[in-house]
């Protein structure tokens, strides 16, 4: 029920944000329209990986299975948002800089980040034992998070076509629209995270019930 309320608020905020983005606010720089989807996707991707990092640290500290599940679920969602950010970024790049892929430091470090987290999932899938898988995954996840500061700093460390956040001048209505988009995206992400975590928990419950009934090998 709480999830449904969260979903309703997220949809309402997104609808208002969409109205403001495409009807009410007309930016002078037309490519700013890309920011309404690209920026939320990228920031939510970082948020998801940050939550995954916290869950992994909690696992290493408390050794609770649910922390390992939380880290995994959050990383999967982060990868989906990351893929959307990469694709939308390259379409924006083609429109603004003339090529889909420029090996720009921001694009390259973002791709490295994405590959690092794909490695996290591959690693978890490749290890058999539950305890060992969770432990190795948590350690790898903490190490993989180091690619996020690198992505943020890439714009200042190397010459980049990608603007820094402080360099972009936006009028108040555009900032407000972008903020609404971010709030809507964050609420929707929290909804998806809770739902995904519930699905994974129920899968564990189903497996436990099947085991209790002695149906191993006979279920779907």
């Amino acid at each position, binding site marked *: 029920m709480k999830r449904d309320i969260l979903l309703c608020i997220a949809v309402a905020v997104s609808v208002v944000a969409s109205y403001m983005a495409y009807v009410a606010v007309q930016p002078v720089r*037309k*490519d700013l*329209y*890309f920011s*309404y*989807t*690209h920026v939320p*996707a990228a920031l939510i991707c970082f948020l998801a990986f940050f939550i995954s990092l916290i869950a992994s640290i909690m696992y290493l500290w408390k050794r609770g299975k649910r922390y390992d599940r939380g880290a995994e679920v959050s990383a999967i*969602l982060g990868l*989906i948002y990351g*893929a*959307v950010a990469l*694709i*939308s970024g390259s*379409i*924006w790049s*083609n*429109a603004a800089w003339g090529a889909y892929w420029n090996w720009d430091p921001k694009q390259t470090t973002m791709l490295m980040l994405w590959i690092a987290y794909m490695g996290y999932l591959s690693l978890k899938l490749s290890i058999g034992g539950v305890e060992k898988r969770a432990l190795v995954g948590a350690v790898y996840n903490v190490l993989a998070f180091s690619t996020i500061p690198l992505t943020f700093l890439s714009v200042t460390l190397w010459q980049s076509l990608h603007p820094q956040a402080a360099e972009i001048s936006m009028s108040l209505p555009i900032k407000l629209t972008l903020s609404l988009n971010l709030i809507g995206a964050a609420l*929707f992400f929290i909804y*998806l995270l809770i*739902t*995904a975590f*519930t*699905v994974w928990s*129920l*899968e564990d*419950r*189903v497996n436990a*019930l*099947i085991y*209790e*009934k002695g149906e191993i090998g006979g279920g779907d």
Partner: protein
Amino acid sequence: MYVYEVFLVSFIYWTALLVLFIWLNRRLSVLRERIAVLEGGKRGR
């Protein structure tokens, strides 16, 4: 200017979220049904 590209980016963003939303909710309802059946069977034994 950029109308097609902006539409494409919005389409990709919302389609990804919608697919995820539908898949998770379908999986949730399937699992709840499965648990109800398994728990029903357990009580029946």
